[in-house]
């Protein structure tokens, strides 16, 4: 019940296209849903995050769509660029004393020029 399921495992998009990565969860106690971007050999970097009281959040070319009833959320990257090529992880957090993040399996995004 603590799991976060992420798909697809890998994604290839042409420059200028839209990249869409999906995540699903079971535990309704999750209260915070961040997306992290990771380049090879680097740590995950916080990209954008949403709380379940809103259905969408947009920051530049990155948008999170959140469907509370379906327990799903997704990351949309508009006008994808080769520099966006990285691994993207969704995550979820329960506001407990530890506030651990539970990560999805990751999506390796390749944006072709």
């Amino acid at each position, binding site marked *: 019940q603590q799991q976060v399921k992420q798909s697809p495992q890998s994604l290839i998009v042409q420059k200028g296209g839209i990249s869409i990565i999906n995540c699903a969860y079971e535990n309704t106690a999750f209260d915070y849903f961040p997306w992290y971007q990771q380049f090879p050999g680097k740590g995950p970097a916080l990209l954008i995050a949403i709380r379940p009281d809103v259905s969408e959040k947009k920051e530049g070319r990155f948008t999170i769509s959140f469907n509370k009833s379906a327990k799903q959320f997704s990351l949309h990257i508009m006008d994808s660029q080769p520099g966006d090529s990285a691994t993207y992880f969704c995550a979820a957090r329960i506001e407990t004393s530890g506030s*651990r993040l539970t*990560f999805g399996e990751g999506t390796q995004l390749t944006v072709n020029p």
Partner: protein
Amino acid sequence: EPEVTQTPSHQVTQMGQEVILRCVPISNHLYFYWYRQILGQKVEFLVSFYNNEISEKSEIFDDQFSVERPDGSNFTLKIRSTKLEDSAMYFCASTRDLYSYEQYFGPGTRLTVT
């Protein structure tokens, strides 16, 4: 911009040896975490630490692991007797307080156990 730093960037050790991985969290942050990532797999939570004690730990964080904040700036993860399966990237993260959502990750230490 403040950032989490980790040393060393790469540690090679023999099975059975003790290793200490070091982290310097962002200076005004109060919550600290260790995560690990086995090559090609997802990031997994190990332990969270607040006010000089463990807040939460995962099933991975067994008696071989320990954490410490030996001074006002460092946060360490010790693996007492390393196993081959401990080979992974270990990430330190910090957050300002319990009610801050953003966790900031360091660049990681690649641990290779031979």
